[in-house]
């Protein structure tokens, strides 16, 4: 149940993520700085949200080229689970570990609110504590969450069940294609999602719907 949280200049939900992982697993994750070329032996690597390098170029574009990403890529190839949330999702897409692109919200504004997510695929290492088509609450906070992917890739993703979360019941906050909120790679060990499950894990957050993602990823390892 060992986990690691990646730290890059400009990421700002790293503390939230460390806190969530600690509370759910009972163990504090190790933190990994952007220049590290080796990642310690862990079962889950998390790239948290924020504005890496200010997002002054395309979101995540600079972060995706830092040394730590090569180490993450190698771990992913070995089957280690990798979760990217918000800016972390954008970084995984920029690094080529996930298909598609994240464009500016159609409103052209930053949006922070609670949305509903439909668990489209509950048969992944990150969602097995949920049931298929279960609708969960989850907050979002982003400026660039408008997911896009070409038609051909979209079709193969649907066929492979790579779409894991969709915004439910008219709550799509950013105009993303087919209401996509989270996607997984073909191998099933790299998940990227725009919403912030780490901000809905305890009573003080007003709910615990986000716990399942971490519980799934960490329990699966223990199993």
């Amino acid at each position, binding site marked *: 149940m060992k986990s690691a949280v990646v730290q890059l*200049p400009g990421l700002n939900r790293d503390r939230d993520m460390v*806190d969530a992982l600690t509370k759910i697993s009972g163990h504090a994750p190790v933190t990994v700085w952007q220049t590290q070329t080796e990642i310690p032996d862990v079962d889950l690597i998390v790239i948290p949200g924020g*504005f890496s390098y200010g997002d002054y170029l395309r979101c995540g574009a600079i972060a995706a080229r830092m040394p730590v990403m090569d180490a993450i890529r190698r771990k992913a190839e070995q089957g280690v689970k990798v979760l990217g949330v918000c800016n972390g999702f954008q970084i995984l897409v920029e690094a080529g570990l996930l298909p598609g692109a994240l464009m500016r919200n159609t409103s052209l*504004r930053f*949006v*922070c609110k609670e949305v509903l997510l439909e668990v489209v695929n509950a048969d992944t290492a990150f969602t097995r504590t949920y049931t298929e088509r279960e609708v969960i609450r989850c907050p979002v*906070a982003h*400026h660039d969450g408008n997911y896009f992917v070409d038609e051909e890739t979209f079709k193969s993703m649907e066929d492979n069940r790579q779409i894991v979360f969709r915004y439910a019941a008219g709550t799509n906050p950013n105009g993303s294609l087919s209401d996509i909120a989270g996607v997984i790679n073909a191998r099933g060990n790299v998940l990227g999602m725009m919403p912030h499950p780490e*901000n809905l894990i305890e009573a*003080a957050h007003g709910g615990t719907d986000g716990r399942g993602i971490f519980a799934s990823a960490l329990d699966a390892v223990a199993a």
Partner: protein
Amino acid sequence: MNIPNSIAITPELVAAHGLKPDEYQRILGLIGREPTFTELGIFSAMWNEHCSYKSSKRWLRTLPTQGPRVIQGPGENAGVVDIDDGDVVVFKMESHNHPSYIEPYQGAATGVGGILRDVFTMGARPIAAMNALRFGAPDHPKTKHLVSGVVAGVGGYGNSFGVPTVGGEVEFDERYNGNILVNAFAAGLAKADGIFLSQAKGVGLPVVYLGAKTGRDGVGGATMASAEFDESIEEKRPTVQVGDPFTEKCLLEACLELMKTGAVIAIQDMGAAGLTCSAVEMGAKGDLGIELDLDKVPVREERMTAYEMMLSESQERMLMVLRPEKEDEAKAIFVKWGLDFAIVGKTTDDLRFRVLHQGEEVANLPIKELGDEAPEYDRPWMESKKHPALLASEVAEPDDYNAALLRLVGSPNQASRRWVWEQYDTIIQGNSLQRPGGDAGVVRVDGHPTKALAFSSDVTPRYVEADPFEGGKQAVAECWRNITATGAEPLAATDNLNFGNPEKPEIMGQFVGAIQGIGEACKALDFPIVSGNVSLYNETNGVAILPTPTIAGVGLIPDWSKMARIGDMNDGDELILIGMDGSHLGSSIYLREVLGSTEGAPPPVDLQAERRHGDFIRGLIRGGQVSACHDVSSGGLVLALAEMTMAAGKGASITLSEQRGPTHALLFGEDQARYVVAIPRDLANFVGASAESSRIPFRRLGTVGGDRLVVDDLLDVAVVDLVNANESWFPAFMA
């Protein structure tokens, strides 16, 4: 090739620096010669209203600033207040009015950046932000553009930096058509033994420059912010700084790491008047001289003059006095975060502020007179003419109470601000217990199992205009009340005093009256002012803003599981009004929105009642007897009830039995010191009895239930219709 620093000093040049002839004479007397161009710039930067508080200082001294929990009052980067267990909260509010009107996105963004820096300069990690924003009339051609830019700027900076925005205000009034107000608040957490101050100590120690490089942006910003606007305003755009929240976030992390090493003797952020102000303040406070060598200053533009470097307001910069043996360790931290770290000078024992550039001395000035002994004025002032009292019987009743209430909840100043706060990250850090939309924002204290802090920002400018003294009192009382409505104990406040041109006796009269009112209320409520900011000259072509002394306060909740919220009421709960019946319609929202009048004296604030009622409410909440609580303010009892039903998504049936006085005053009157509480039915008699025995006036209003707000046979509106009216105005306005 040398960069020229010598420019002839002419009366025109002196005037263009905002220095009055008598102030220039004072400079000549002080240094016994004509100042150099760089020196003139330094004097202009230090002696302008924004940095020197020369018109306001005399009156600010009258405010209560001490209390058993106050660790640091005004005079440092922010106030520091004890919240038990060795924890402290560090907070301040500051204006960025002038720049936000000229360039709304960057003006607002750098306002947020500046206040965050004030907080983390003191060693605190920012945990909450608020913004009090005031714009011109909705139909003024500039208003939409300004709202859009300011909100995006506030969000753009705060979201990227990573601080939750948990509260604030957005108001419209035509008196802000030419001068909007952007007042930014930030609070941070620190340990009592981990506070850093700006007072330099020790002679011959290195003065270190930290953070971003110096450019030409913002040169003369503080001087610009100390003058009125006219048609030439567009030309002032280059005086507005450009924000870089990414660098600020890196600077935060680097500074907090640095502070842990023990390397920091004194630290000061570079805000208004940049390098000049930070260096002079550190030296003057420590009774030391400072020598700066500008050839060592990290710059991002070529051939900058000494004048430009000294007056640049480039953002995300700090100055510190370093323990020399820690230099390597300190530098490594800044290299890791990709920030500049340069020794640019040293402390001296001669009380001079000396600036070297290209080997030449371009300034040599007495540091005390620049800093804490700057000029001070006792400006002539005239007692403000107060609006005469207006009896409720002289105010027309509405023809249709349903229509009047729907109009109020959907009016520009009472409509939901969701469009605004959904652009702010309100949940980052995972500690936000109450987000915008309630009485106060509430944030958990990280690392403590039960403690939380409540934050609120308040002022009712139309009251201050009608009676500065009562309006000043009311701003403090409402802030105290909003904090109390969560169950928190109000601890201390920061003030952001926004007024017109202080050289006009009538404006100075508003300022003096408001300060006297604030002072009286703070004393009566044990709510000291621990930090603050004054913004004067908010005038365009001779028209001043409404006098707007914003008060932002902090309260402590020992156990957040016993906190109250606005909308947590249950079917069957009894609704009780704590406080007197409404009777006062002067300067009310009803008068303005329904009858189109701004007449009448504002409601008087009985501070003893305020305190007694608030203490009673806090006792109820902490005793677990309250399911929901809301303060009664603008719009009176019926608007408070409407806001509670909208937040809960539940209706209520109200009966006004044993009515005394006119009905519209009972429903819309804005009398102070009042709350509405929802009490579980089995506790309602007990709460009534304890109010009676404590001699607290109260009125049993009715019951929570259904999906309509009903008041006898006067009013009957579906809650969903209230919500629609309340939520639709802002998006429609901004569409």
